[in-house]
């Protein structure tokens, strides 16, 4: 009886959150799936035309979408490697506690994460300006004129430049996450390693990193999901321009749903891309978690 009452109480307390979740996540997600079977501008309920799987067929052969997906993969891998290399480095260095001004560095590295993506995009648009932007001006000042290029114009540099801003923006978050993980490792392990004659580098790779695994798994999963569905900085900075070379999947689908410089609205096709993206994210997340799962948990 008590157990039954207890369950009812749990259900009662969960109900508001569950309702919000159903209304604002589950229902729109299911509706997006329904819309993806229609050719529809999204403005008037009476003008939707059922096209079956045609939108999904278009998803498979859309070359611009493939390019956008390639950018997501670039951000995922190259951006991820850079982010985690730097985040681990700073987290490890700052957790030593021996660095003068450590708190200052921590705050400085974390600060960009507190700025909105739109403000960051605007700031870096100015930095990247070919004529009077900070980057090219500095390059010219130090005699590297040849490197002072319109970085956001060309395929070889445009999306890497956008990716760098994404890394710059999110680095602080991952650094703090890993820093907290390192702080949680009991000092006994490090002391034992030191007594055994391990160097700082050896301690990091053989003690810190393995014990940080659970935090890293979550952090990397967070990065994977964020990179695959990245929207904010890429959209605010370039809106896919020029010629669609800086689109991510999310900015590309948004351009079909709500074009910035046009008047063609294809919410059905945009929904088909969104549904496909959702399936990709779920699949990758499941595969990643299965691969990364450890049989035993760490308990300090």
């Amino acid at each position, binding site marked *: 009886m008590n157990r039954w009452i207890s369950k009812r109480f749990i259900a009662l307390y969960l109900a508001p959150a569950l309702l919000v979740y159903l209304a604002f996540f589950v229902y729109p997600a299911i509706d997006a799936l329904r819309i993806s079977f229609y050719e529809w501008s999204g403005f008037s309920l009476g003008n939707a035309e059922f096209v079956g799987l045609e939108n999904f067929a278009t998803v498979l052969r859309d070359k611009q979408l493939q390019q956008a997906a390639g950018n997501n993969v670039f951000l995922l891998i190259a951006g991820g490697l850079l982010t985690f290399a730097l985040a681990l480095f700073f987290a490890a260095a700052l957790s030593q506690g021996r660095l003068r001004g450590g708190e200052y560095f921590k705050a400085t590295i974390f600060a960009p994460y507190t700025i909105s993506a739109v403000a960051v995009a605007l700031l870096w648009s100015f930095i990247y300006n070919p004529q009077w932007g900070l980057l*090219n001006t500095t390059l010219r000042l130090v005699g590297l004129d040849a490197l002072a290029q319109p970085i956001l114009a060309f395929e070889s540099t445009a999306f890497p430049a956008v990716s760098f801003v994404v890394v710059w923006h999110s680095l602080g978050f991952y650094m703090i996450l890993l820093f907290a993980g390192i702080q949680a490792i009991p000092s006994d392990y490090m002391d034992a390693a030191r007594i055994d004659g391990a160097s700082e580098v050896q301690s990091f790779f053989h003690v810190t990193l393995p014990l940080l695994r659970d935090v890293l798994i979550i952090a990397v999963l967070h990065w994977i999901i964020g990179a695959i569905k990245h929207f904010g900085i890429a959209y605010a900075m370039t809106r896919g321009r020029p010629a669609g070379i800086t689109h991510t999947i999310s900015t590309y689908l948004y351009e079909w749903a709500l074009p910035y410089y046009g008047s063609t609205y294809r919410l059905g096709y945009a929904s088909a891309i969104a549904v496909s993206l959702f399936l990709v994210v779920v699949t990758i997340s499941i595969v990643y978690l299965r691969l990364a799962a450890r049989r035993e948990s760490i308990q300090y």
Partner: protein
Amino acid sequence: MTRIRRRFSRRQFLGTAGVLGAGATLAACTPASPTVAPTQPPAATQAPVATQPPAATEATMPQVSGNLEMMHFIGEGAAYYNFMLTLGDEFKAANPDLNLSWVWGGSDYANQFRARMLANDPPTASAFEENNMRLWAAEGLLVKLDDFLEGSNYDGTGRWLDDFAESVRSRMIMDPGADGPGYYGIPYETFINSIWYNTKLYNELGLQEPSTWAEFLSNCEALKAAGYWPIAHDGNISGYNRRWWFHLIGSLVGGAKYRATLLNEPGTSWTGEPGFLRAAELVHELYEKEYFQPGYQGYQWPAAQIDFATERAGQIMMSSGLYSEIVDAIPEGFSMSTFNTPIVEGGAGDGPNTIWEFKFNAFFVPTGSDNVEAAVEWFKYNTSRAVQQRQASEEGLQRPPSVAGVEMTPLHAGTARMLDTATLAWPREYGGPQLAPDWAKQVLEPLYDPFFYGQTTPEEFINELQAKHDEFYGN
């Protein structure tokens, strides 16, 4: 349904009669325009119109009441924002029983409007740019306003429809429309994309406004020789980049032929019409001769506008709204004017009296609006000649009007001249993005920017365009 009440006191009658009498006298003294094109208004050649709020004419204005929720596509703080607020206050003062409220959409406007329409909770009235409105008119989202336009204008001096400039009227009819072809929007401002130049630099160098492409290139050369960047250009906006090619296509090939080729009509091809390649070669020449500012390819809007405003560059291709966008950046003594993109001599396309890229922003009543009468009266007020005159001349705004007979400031002398003489006004890219949106996105867009940046030659661009075009249509 809102009841329209008419209040017309003796004093108001006398005031109105006085204004009408003065207007008639003024009109009689105004010399006729010597070169009025058959389809254009004599915009710059008319006598000045009063620039104050039309206090006296309020006498003829029907009173409206109830709620009027105005959802505007501009964002708070935009150039037009304060002007709109002022007009709103005036309109409210003239209609004390009206409850006017605002929703400022900004860049999220279409999303907000979509949500309101789907929720069956439309705003009373709204405003957007014409290309989007055409789509919405076809989908049945807009109320057809033909009957209202047949009625009296705000001042009560004539048929409302007759107030609009001929160039605007020719584009006002939206076809297809859910209720048949007709007037689904009320234009309140117009835009021409043309080449703006720094008049001080032009005067210093003894340059004249060019009427041919060769003269334009000569001016570019003179500016470059004097140490200025001939053209400022935000190369990161693909639509801006394409303008150069499209404007040149206009005089070399003609907008109609472009449309036919785009739609893959029999007997058309990109490689078979030499004008397309010639236009590309002329655009490429701008790149080769380094007439754009260095690094233009990576310029993010509005960076190039700042280069123009700060007198580092002598010219820029931009819309009629340029001034209001750079007004905070221009130094004292800065002045600018504009000319239509010059024609290429010997071209087989549209003639010099063509506006290559023209559009208007318009008010509209969404289907299901709860107070159509108030909305229409509000639109009438906004398109009254006095308000349009203020819009055209107000410091910091100076937007070209939609109605005829409004005098534009010296800033817009070129705009007025174009409107005066134009016999043809094309929409952006000759309507291509609306006619074949998938083609524009999948065929032209990926090819054009690399060409514009100098990464591919004109020949490569045209050949690749033909190949992708054939692939798209399965030719």
